[in-house]
């Protein structure tokens, strides 16, 4: 059900609890993923994503940060030959448990991609409710859902007079916000973002970053970015990935963003943050 207003918002600080007490929205245990070959792309990743926080995944190219993100809603296995081991818990449930349909997982864990990918043959309006329609659901209050989701991503004012024109007629930044609207129309618990700004100009990037800080009031967000400034701006927690000489990506350090950027525990994190490599 779509609820309008703030009644669905969960704020843990308000309940007088600190982050350390909060059960993670997503938690991985020994997550290892392969692309066809014998060597994994990421190995033994143990990562927590706290509810209503933005968690940034950073690291140099090829460190497996996108791979790790795609494992969180079972999109990794879409690639032919790809394989996953380990566990990923959405609250209490293992999304890789036998009998769990990936379709159900993806309904609750949405994803936004690097390159905006609105459906080109659909109008802006239809793009927003595409997920609901394509899933075979009867969308009764389509107008309201479209308004609410476009408003939530700050796109309503820009497109309200051309809802019937094609989604690909928008600018790159608008397309990306349309894709976010499309994702939140499914009312997911978690929103995964795979370098959502890397194809966008600075102004569009700024708008998406602003949007992320609004969205996390309602959704849990995990964002992969190669832009460290962006990670420090938008995220509450940061996970640093690095591939060793064996080219297997591992989680090196995880902690509050402020700590990772000002006082990292690991030498390798510090070297990366300060620009000594990568």
């Amino acid at each position, binding site marked *: 059900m779509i609820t309008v207003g703030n009644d669905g918002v969960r704020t843990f600080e308000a309940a007088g609890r600190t982050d350390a007490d909060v059960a993670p929205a997503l938690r991985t245990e020994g997550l290892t993923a392969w692309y066809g070959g014998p060597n994994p792309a990421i190995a033994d990743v143990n990562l927590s994503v706290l509810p209503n926080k933005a968690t940034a995944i950073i690291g140099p190219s090829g460190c497996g940060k996108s791979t790790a993100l795609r494992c969180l809603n079972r999109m990794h296995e879409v690639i032919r030959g790809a394989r996953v081991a380990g566990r990923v818990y959405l609250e209490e449930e293992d999304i890789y448990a036998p009998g769990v349909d990936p379709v159900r997982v993806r309904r609750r864990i949405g994803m936004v991609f690097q390159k905006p*990918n609105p459906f080109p043959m659909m109008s802006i309006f239809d793009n927003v409710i595409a997920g609901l329609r*394509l899933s075979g659901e009867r969308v009764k209050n389509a107008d309201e859902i479209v308004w609410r989701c476009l408003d939530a991503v700050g796109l309503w004012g820009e497109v309200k007079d051309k809802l019937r024109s094609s989604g690909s007629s928008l600018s790159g930044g608008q397309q990306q916000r349309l894709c976010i609207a499309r994702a939140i129309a*499914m009312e997911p618990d978690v929103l995964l973002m795979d370098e959502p700004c890397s194809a966008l100009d600075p102004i569009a990037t700024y708008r998406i970053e602003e949007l992320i800080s609004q969205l996390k009031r309602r959704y849990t967000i995990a964002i992969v970015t190669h832009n460290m400034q962006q990670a420090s701006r938008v995220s509450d927690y940061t996970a640093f990935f690095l591939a060793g000489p064996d080219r297997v990506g591992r989680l090196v350090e995880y902690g509050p963003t402020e700590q990772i950027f000002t006082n990292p525990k690991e030498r390798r994190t510090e070297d990366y943050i300060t620009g000594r490599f990568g």
Partner: protein
Amino acid sequence: MAAVSGALVARRPLSQALPGELRRRMVDRIAMSLIASTALLGCAVLLFVVSYVVVRGAPAIDVAFFTEGPKPYGEEGGGVLPAIVGTLSMLLLASAIAIPAGLGTAIYLSEFGRGAFAHAVRFALDLLAGMPSIVIGVFVWSLLVRQVIGRFSGIAGAVALAIIMIPIVSRTVEEILRLVPDALREGSLALGVPRWRTIVGVVLPTARAGVITGVMLSLARAGGETAPLLLTALGNQFLSFDLTSPIASLPVQIYNYAVAPYEDWHTKAWGSALVLVSVIGCLSLVTRIATRRARL
């Protein structure tokens, strides 16, 4: 290493030609005119064939040509209505067989097919596409006409046409579906849309124009086939909608008119050819317009 200095490579003013420049420009011009004229040749052949068919066929066209059947030799007038009806009804039945089969094959190959089996399917389809149509005619004749049905019939003709259409539909549509970016498939899957709904709701609609082009291509090819129809549908002088018995078709009608020793029938052959070209031309024009409108 020493830096590359001006002494090693002569610096020329822009006004001075580089070595071989004149030759390059000449070769460029010759090559350009060659490829442009081959491109022009393609258009010219089409223009020539169509205008020749129009010029030779137009005298045969009158109202009766579309409302009557062929007359025996010696009688004036007559038309190709049975042939138009026969061709359209056989194409309809052939499409009903070939379009679902071809689309299904294309979806399998582009969305799921990997490994030895898919390779074998692709290879088989390519062989089938290159199979001389008379061989397909002989095959359907010996199987359906001689054995299963026991006589010449529109059904046998439609089956032969469907066998010709299936590889064209499946291979062209497969190529089109492969052009749909994976980003769209992933975008749909990531919304929690099941695989089959992603294919039906995102992949096929995105490729719609190309899918229709592939189907039209196969229809045009099947609509002009003569040899397999001679062996299967045979032909019919009279108007018939019954696909279980022999039925007329435009290509066979053209053939019958053209091989006859009468000048009047030769004109009618050209007229029939004009009708066949127009029918296929209209079909592709209508679908082009329909898909363009739907693209909004």
